[in-house]
């Protein structure tokens, strides 16, 4: 498998406090990679830095062969990395249709001139975007809300909309920031199934999440951060067996942690 995202020696300090102290990892094309760690371990800082929403102090981020280190957020998105946010972000006063159309519009060749004259290029672009939107809406099961503004949807449904929007322009990688935090269990299952289907269709995901069960069922590879450092990396089973991870994540001895983890699962 080829590497789509390569992060090396990422460092970031907030007024002296090292949020990231040399984090390196890779994401393979077509995989689901999980990023977990206790609060303050640097998960959010990591994805904010690689997606350009925070300036990194040093390190290198390579997306599909392009060095995107230090680029501004919208240019990183154009390079093929789409992200969602921890507190869900959708255009609440626009319809689901418009939410999805906007997510794709920067990526087609149609300019405002094309739109004004309704050229073929514009029609082709709109048609393609509409087709993709329909597919994604079918997948997330929100067909009947297609023409309704997304503000009326529930929190979990908005998370699905954010996911669909991130997928609209066929990105090289989708970075999900806590996709199931604050979402009820039935909806979590739906999101899980949707992500699996999308992954089978070839989409690549990097997921930051607190929900260990969610991560271990979905991810091919799990990276564990603690205090700005990569603590461990491996398959879900390997991570489960790693006593350092359990200690850092739960702050207890392996035996008790095992038990707690089993109980939470």
């Amino acid at each position, binding site marked *: 498998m080829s590497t789509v995202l390569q992060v090396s020696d990422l460092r970031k300090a907030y007024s002296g406090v090292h949020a990231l102290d040399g984090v390196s990892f890779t994401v393979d094309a077509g995989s689901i990679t999980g990023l977990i760690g206790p609060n303050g371990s640097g998960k959010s800082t990591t994805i904010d830095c690689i997606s350009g929403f925070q300036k990194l102090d040093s390190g290198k981020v390579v997306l599909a062969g392009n060095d995107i280190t230090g680029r501004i957020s*919208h240019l990183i998105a154009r390079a093929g990395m789409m992200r969602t946010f921890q507190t869900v972000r959708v255009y609440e006063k626009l319809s689901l249709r418009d939410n999805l159309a*906007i997510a794709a519009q920067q990526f087609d060749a149609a300019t405002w001139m094309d739109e004004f004259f309704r050229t073929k290029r514009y029609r082709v672009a709109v048609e393609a975007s509409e087709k993709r939107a329909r597919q994604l809406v079918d997948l997330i099961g929100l067909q009947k809300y297609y023409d309704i503004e997304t503000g009326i949807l529930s929190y979990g449904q908005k998370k699905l909309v954010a996911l669909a929007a991130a997928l609209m322009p066929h990105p090289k990688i989708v970075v999900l920031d806590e996709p199931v935090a604050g979402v009820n269990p039935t909806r979590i299952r739906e999101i899980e199934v949707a992500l699996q289907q999308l992954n089978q269709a070839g989409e690549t995901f990097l997921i930051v999440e607190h929900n260990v069960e969610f991560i271990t069922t979905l991810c091919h590879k799990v990276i564990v951060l603690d205090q700005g450092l990569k603590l461990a990396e491996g398959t879900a089973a390997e991570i489960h067996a790693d006593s350092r991870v359990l200690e850092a994540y739960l702050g207890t001895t392996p035996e008790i942690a095992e038990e707690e983890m089993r109980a939470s699962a």
Partner: protein
Amino acid sequence: MKRALPLALLCALALGALPLVTSSNYFVGIGVSALIFTVAAAALNLVYGFTGLLSFAQLGFWGIGGYTTALTVVTFGGNFWMGLVYAAVLNGVVALVVGFPILRTNRHAFVISTLTFALLVALVARDWVELTRGPLGIPNLPPPRAFGVVFDSTHKFYWIAWAFSVAMIAFLYALCSSRIGRTLVAIKQNEPLVRAQGISPMPYKLAAFAIGAAITGAAGGVFTFYLRIIDTSFLDFYYMQTFLIIVIIGGAGSFWGVIASGIALSALPEALRFSADFRMIIYGVILVAAMYLMPSGVAGWLRERQIARVRKALQ
């Protein structure tokens, strides 16, 4: 937005016929103000309602437009039409220069900066006496001419105001109902999300600010030649207040809501003339009541009702 188009065209034609149905200078005069104020309010709606930038600089642009058009004719030997073009271009350039730094500041700082800009323009108009003649103003502006017609009466001038506002509103409609308009709304609602989707918000904001400025400036130019005089009172806060009230009552962000409220509210203070002493108080009461009952404007109120219906239907 698109459903209202046939109705809007019908209204435009009906308004165009106003000078034919009444010989009263008074009514036609109200019509001229209503049309021009509506255009200025629609421009503010582009900046504030669509893009979310509360700009008091519109008053400054209105003044710069008025003075530019007047000075083009009186001092620089051009005609009214050239004056309008200069007003639009100058305002566009000023807006780009001013907007470039201040659009980078936060929302509150932006509002204060635009307010300061408007006050600064008023100060220049008062104190640069060699150019603007200060408080004396520039009276007796010649009526515009075109194709051998002299637009020297209110009835004739109405056609200019009508053609101007139809053209400007059509342009703004095309802009607001396009992808660009949709992107502006997206920027207003969630700027980080816009950036995460590969769209740089700055060019859009700057373009909206500059286009709003150019149109406001041209509107100021037309209004100056309707008054046939310009002085420092042209930069009175009364105008800004009028534009803002039209936008807020109509529903910021609703294209046709603001157009309809522009026409209605410009006529309202006049319609209340039956009680000359109390009319501005009644006007104020109506405004407060409207805001109390419909905090997001008439269009916002209608929209909320529609959403409530949809929500009910889905349950």
